[in-house]
């Protein structure tokens, strides 16, 4: 009798244990998926946001046209990769074509805008500069349509070229892992450039106090140009790197700019490390929403932003700027 009860208990226990293990498995798989998707998304966001925040930090311009740089990078990259594969050349070189095309396009348009327009506007109110860059965004949106048309572009080849990896029963694209690596490298390069090089230190002086920088004889105008080019380049690069994963269609720049704003604001405007943290927060929050409750995908990003702002209005890592008279 007692043995019988004991056995029943035993089987109940094992049942529970098995059930627990099953739940654990599902939860862990879900968690793994959320973390990996989140980090991939964050990597992509970081590349965009880093350029945006750098330009704001140095130039005090919240550049709405950053979304256009992203779109131009995506179109240039996707367009050239499509052409490259049609020539039947070595597939591996397509990565170089993708990135090269985007960077050239991004730097060209960045130089054109900074030298041709923005430099005449320096010193204006920050809100006016938002409106100016909004105007540039509108113009570039149509310029993109005129150059590349309105049909979608696909540049899936680099994406499929790298294959996929199975991890705990889930399949991930290796291309996405590469995105994480590239984003990390960009982050490290920015950190090194800002903290360890002479030009980077000059840049930080400008970020901290433009007038003192000018008084010290730093060529602020040159630093502005360089910063804007780096920012534009990063925007275009982000576009190129996303292009293989999706179809490049009109309007992607307009979509991306508000996301980048959210990231940058969460981290603190003007702070590159803040952009990293912001990107991770937004990336993970979005991935969690997509996997658990897809209805709130977009909502969650701005809700996080609202939360951060309610608690810490200047963002998590705001750059302290010198008080002025």
């Amino acid at each position, binding site marked *: 009798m007692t043995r019988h009860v004991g056995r029943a208990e035993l089987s109940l226990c094992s049942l529970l244990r098995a059930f627990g293990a099953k739940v654990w498995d599902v939860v862990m798989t879900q968690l793994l998926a959320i973390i990996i998707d989140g980090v991939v998304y964050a990597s992509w966001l970081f590349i965009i946001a880093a350029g945006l925040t750098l330009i704001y930090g140095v130039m005090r311009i919240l550049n709405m046209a950053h979304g256009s740089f992203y779109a131009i990078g995506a179109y240039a990259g996707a367009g050239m990769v499509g052409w490259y594969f049609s020539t039947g050349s070595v597939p591996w070189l397509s990565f170089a074509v993708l990135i090269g095309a985007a960077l050239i396009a991004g730097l060209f348009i960045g130089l054109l805008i900074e030298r041709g327009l923005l430099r005449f506007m320096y010193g204006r109110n920050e809100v006016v500069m938002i409106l100016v860059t909004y105007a540039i965004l509108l*113009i570039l949106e149509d310029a993109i349509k005129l150059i590349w048309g309105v049909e979608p572009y696909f540049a899936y080849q680099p994406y499929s070229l790298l294959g996929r990896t199975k991890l705990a029963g889930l399949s991930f694209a290796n291309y996405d892992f590469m995105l994480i690596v590239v984003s990390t490298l960009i982050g490290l390069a920015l950190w090194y450039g800002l903290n360890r090089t002479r030009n980077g230190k000059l840049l930080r002086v400008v970020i901290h106090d433009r007038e003192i920088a000018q008084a010290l004889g730093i060529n602020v105008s040159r630093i502005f140009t360089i910063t804007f080019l780096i920012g534009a380049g990063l925007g275009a690069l982000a576009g190129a790197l996303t292009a293989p994963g999706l179809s490049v269609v009109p309007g992607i720049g307009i979509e991306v700019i508000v996301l980048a704003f959210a990231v940058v604001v969460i981290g603190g405007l003007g702070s590159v490390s803040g952009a990293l943290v912001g990107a991770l927060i937004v990336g993970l929050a979005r991935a969690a929403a997509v996997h658990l409750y897809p209805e709130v995908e977009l909502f969650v990003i701005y809700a996080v932003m609202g939360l951060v702002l309610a608690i810490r209005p200047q963002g998590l890592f705001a750059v302290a700027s010198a008080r002025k008279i």
Partner: protein
Amino acid sequence: MQTKSILLLIGGALGLFVLGLLVPEWLSYLMIIAMGKGIVVLGVVLLMRAGLVSFGQGLYYCIGAYVAGTLTQFAGISDVLLILLASIAASVLVAALVGLLLCRYRGIFFAMFSMAFSMILYGLLVRSSVLGSTDGFNVLRPSLLGWVPSDDASSDLVLAVAVVMVMILGSLMWLYFRSLSGYAGEAVRENEIRVEYLGTSVFRIIYTKYLIAAALAGIGGTVTALVSGHVDPEMAYWTTSGEFVFIALMGGTSHVAAPMVGAGLFELLRTYAFAIAPYTWQMILGSTLLLIIIFLPSGLWSLVSRFSRQARG
């Protein structure tokens, strides 16, 4: 003096209404849309006079529109006056909450956070299948105090509502801009420290303006929804709010008529741009915006006032 201006207003309203009936249907439609947007821009201008640029009035525009849609489509309420009241109530309620957070900010922060809040609504609407997700849904024809207009008369009713709203709200805002509260906005723009040291709360001034602007945007959204017969989440998208800012800058902030004229020109320009060169509309907008910022920072209305000043001597 008082009666004269009231007569003038009634005359203006009648004139506008008759004009709306005389012109071809597409132009009449365009007129109503322009009036709807003009009302929203009135609120944008109100904030601009206090030194704040809102890139998020689309939030309340969309709320006003969806209230009209939901009431006619799902609640069986079609009375224009009820719909307008509900829109105002909904917009002001949301603004009362959002404003608590938002009105602490100035400059680019105000611009961006207002944008973020309208994107929250957009994000919610595109995923709510009950409300038609990205496609939105149709708004049924309105009625007035038990009178249900026929197909043809329906657009006339909306025209009348739009004209009356424009005239009433325009006059109220005209008075408002001249009152202490109106000037308080300029005072805040010019020097918040001084305002605080006069013993007045800057936050309260801005908060009040934010609520008024929200109510105006809600009304504008309702008018637009009633005339177009359709609502969709795009109304809360930040580019919609960008349009309002554009119209405000184009018209200028010095007179209540400027947003209306600005909105009219804007819609006319858009119609022709789409017809003549479809992929250049935003390019035209952007270039115009740049030209205005560089050459005409006080908007087109500054031309009007410059001419009238010259004419006077």
